[in-house]
């Protein structure tokens, strides 16, 4: 499985990671070599095998409908890079 530069650029955008243009080519090479190595899985016949849902042999626990949390704005905003008036802020979004 060989990835080209455009594919890597597209994946990097999906993952919102800036990759400089000159680094796309070597990165494509690295990712391709990993994918080539992973390709060995295809030789295994897995027809009819259920995909693993979880190794935890238990049922999903459920919580009571009680308000036990929140009301901690200071804690929530404490580490924010640019909070204002109780809000987080980001560069202006134009819809």
């Amino acid at each position, binding site marked *: 499985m060989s*990835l080209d530069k455009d*594919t*890597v650029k597209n*994946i*990097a*955008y*999906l*993952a*919102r*990671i*800036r*990759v400089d243009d000159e680094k796309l080519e070597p*990165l494509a090479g*690295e*990712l391709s*070599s*990993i*994918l080539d*190595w*992973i390709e*060995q*899985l*295809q030789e*295994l016949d*897995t027809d009819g*095998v*259920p*995909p*693993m849902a*979880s*190794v*935890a*042999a*238990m049922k*999903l*626990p459920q*919580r009571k409908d009680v308000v036990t949390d929140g009301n*901690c704005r200071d*804690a*929530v*905003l*404490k*580490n*924010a*890079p*640019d909070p204002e008036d109780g809000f*987080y802020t*980001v*560069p*202006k*979004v134009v819809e």
Partner: protein
Amino acid sequence: MTKLTDLTIRGALDGLAAKEFSAAELAEAHIQAMEAGRDLNAFITETPEIALERARESDNRRAKGDALGAMDGVPIAMKDLFCTEGVLTTAASHILDGFTPPYESTVSANLRSAGAVMLGKANLDEFAMGSANITSYYGPVKNPWKATDGKDAGKDLVPGGSSGGSAAAVSGGMAVAATGTDTGGSIRQPASFCGIVGLKPTYGRCSRWGVIAFASSLDQAGPMTKTVEDAAIMLGAMAGHDPKDSTSAPMAVPDFAAALSGDVKGLKIGIPKEYRMDGMDPEIQALWDQGVNWLKAAGCEIKDVSLPHTKYALATYYIVAPAECSANLARYDGVRYGLRIPGDSLDDMYMNTRGEGFGHEVQRRILIGTYALSSGYYDAYYIKAQKVRTLIANDFKAAFEDVDVILTPTAPTPAFALGEKQEDPVAMYLNDVFTVPTSLAGLPGISVPAGLSKSGLPLGLQLIGRAFDEETLLRAAHAVELAAAFNHKPGREG
């Protein structure tokens, strides 16, 4: 009297009980060792004030005759993947610059209520992604051990990873014990490289709440200690059902230390033939054979077992873990905490922050995971890997019909020199060839130091147990430990 920094958890507890030294003295000795060992870069953040305060609290409890926890007064290192209230928590990543959690992870809180004393936050591979502790934004950790012979003699060696700082701290006498986390071998492999005991419990045994996630279906916290008994004591202090983690097993915590009866007569030990890989280092093979003989001599029944899908485990892991990490690490976006690199638009800010904030290996895994989940490739990669994962788990299920514990090497090599294997990611991934299958199956595994390589470096043997049967696993590991009588110390003065 033994040097304070040579003490095990058991030895420390006994000494404290006998008033041979105070918890404050014990903490102070380790703080000094931590400072003296800074060249190893085992800690990202040292917390001597916290350590001394908690040590004094422990001394007060002891003086007043208050109830004591299972690790009361024992100084430990905390892998910097556990969120600690009011203490910088980094995951060894630039992207978490300045992040001080307003909360404490369940495991570190459990340890604190057991009286353990936190010395500092141990270095690790960035977001626990790595097998050599060379991907940390805060620089690589050095192994306290040096090769006495061979091509790496005298060179700085890696401690293994991702819990490399934890392993180096314990091995180097800077902490009595440490927490680690293991996703594909991150406790066991560095334990093997540094000559200590590392236990990855059954998935669900220790809460993941407050532990910075790498791959949620695999991540599991565990103890890194000097002895098997210590691992049993510390696991008891870490484990327990946590309603805040939906995958935490609603099971009582047994007295693990009580399981170390020393008696393993009749225990059935499985030797998986698929772990006998082509080109296996004869040293590793010899150590493994030695382990078999020790257990046989202790009265165990040795049986061959087959884990036929072993050879696909690494490839499976390198789909599942990156896929999960690609989503788990999406929250590091420069909005609510950590690093923000400004940008003209929201997307710009995201891309700048994540481009600069994540190191190369983390980026590589996020990209592989993103690709494996993307439209058109999901079935071929992610679903395929989860199917193979089922087969791997079934292999173990079948094997454990016949045996109680499985014995394998922990890692295919001893510690290697800093700078090696950095260019080739796949070569690096092969470090985890023996540990990854256990992780995929969610089973408990432990690495016990069992001997030295010709170059004078520690080598570990791995034992794998049934889900939630850490007691039998520890009992067998204890037998290996007794037989190996591994009492070597790293060359450097701790």
